[in-house]
């Protein structure tokens, strides 16, 4: 899912950088309003933890393995803006410390995994809880959110690759189908693991779900700490 340098055309990189920076400006503006200095170390340790969590592989179909993309769980626990900030940090460290992903494709990677992969799951969860506010609905919502979020992020990655006609040798339909199919399998795994993580937190420390969620004002907050 991390697109390395050399896979995307320059104008695609520029467009995705611009779109990402606009979102980030709003995210930091809102973050400054919502959190105080107490939450900075907290958010940092949680980001470090999700970084480690992304490294653990689990088997999916056949001999292939997948790892958590982490967008849905970040969205549900920290809120979309905070999730975007966390994801940006994770991707930046992965690029500048481990060489996963690239510098000029960083904008595209943040767009796919930090904006599409975080905002879409949050919105889906909110909508489903608006229809029915119960624990079962929440679990279904989390699964759908994680699945759709992953697949959409992959489809965007495929689109960016396919539209890079100068550098990437395959067309949009091939790239989108390959990425979408692969990640629809990964998405099921992500859905199951995210449900398990949320249910264990709700069982052991439901109060942790009250971490202030940094979300756009019009979106409203996801309240799940009282569900048992």
């Amino acid at each position: 899912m991390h697109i390395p340098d050399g896979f995307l055309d320059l104008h695609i990189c520029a467009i995705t950088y611009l779109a990402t920076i606009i979102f980030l400006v709003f995210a930091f503006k809102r973050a400054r309003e919502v959190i105080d200095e107490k939450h900075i170390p907290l958010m940092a340790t949680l980001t470090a933890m999700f970084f480690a969590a992304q490294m653990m592989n689990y088997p999916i179909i056949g001999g292939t393995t997948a790892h958590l993309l982490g967008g849905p769980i970040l969205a549900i626990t920290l809120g979309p803006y905070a999730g975007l900030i966390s994801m940006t940090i994770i991707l930046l460290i992965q690029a500048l410390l481990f060489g996963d992903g690239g510098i000029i494709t960083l904008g595209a990677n943040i767009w796919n995994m930090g904006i599409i992969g975080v905002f879409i799951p949050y919105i889906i969860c909110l909508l489903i809880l608006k229809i029915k506010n119960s624990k079962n609905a929440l679990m279904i919502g989390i699964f759908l959110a994680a699945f759709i979020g992953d697949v959409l992020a992959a489809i965007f990655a495929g689109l960016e690759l396919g539209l890079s006609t100068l550098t990437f040798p395959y067309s949009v339909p091939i790239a989108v189908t390959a990425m979408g199919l692969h990640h629809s399998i990964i998405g099921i795994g992500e859905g199951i693991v995210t449900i398990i993580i949320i249910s264990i937190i709700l069982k052991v420390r439901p109060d942790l779900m009250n971490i202030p969620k940094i979300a756009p004002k019009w979106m409203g907050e996801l309240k799940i700490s009282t569900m048992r």
Partner: protein
Amino acid sequence: MIKELLKAFEDLVYLERYPLLNGYLQKIDPRIKLFATAILIIVIVSTLKITPLLLLLITIISFTIVSKIPLKNFLIRVTIFIPIFAGIITLPLPFITPGLILTSFSIAGFSLNLTYEGVYKMILFTFRVWLSIAYLILLILTTKFTNMLYAMRRLKFPQIFIMLTSITYRFIFTFINESYRMILARESRITSKQRRLDIMRDLGNIIGTLFIRAYERGERVYFAMVSRGYSGEIKSINKLKIHVRDVIFLILTILICAVTILLNYLMVI
């Protein structure tokens, strides 16, 4: 599960060693290096012929040598994984691209034409990906991450972002270590081959527990920071200054980029 984490440790040991060497690129200001790497990669991505890229290949090999990074190690590290992946996904290209036919042969009734244009496209794509990754890895191997963060701070990234990133960076190792211990404990209790769903359940439980521990650690870290005088701002005694050698390095890089762009216009292939 455990292999990935061990690989991360290995990577980090490897990464921590080279930025401390007394080589040429290690002495360059991190801001300049970040900028130079970005424009070099932009030039690589916009070059659509192989010959100009050879100049950039010579450049990176010389940079690696003057920075005292073992060349063989470096080349292996750059080549494994992503460039090999790029090579594999472009394997069908020589056969599906129309153009001058080099050879044709038939397998099980299908006739395949190996075209010159296809082979060229495949080599160009893989080479370009390889070079981009090589320049990124050279930047990583010659710059300490804390210096990179300091450079970003001077480049006016939001302060809250720099602070979050630097604390995150320091705790990544703690949490990789913690996950490693939890997974090791789990593996040592397993006696038989597990079903897929069981593995996912255990993984979910491990991450859930890690989340709770991370939350509790975050609170402790905050109190530890407050007791050491934290008030929500970063202060650093690290000072960066642009020296003459930084300017020379920047001019050199821009010259190389200019020659590459020129060659891209002049050369046929």
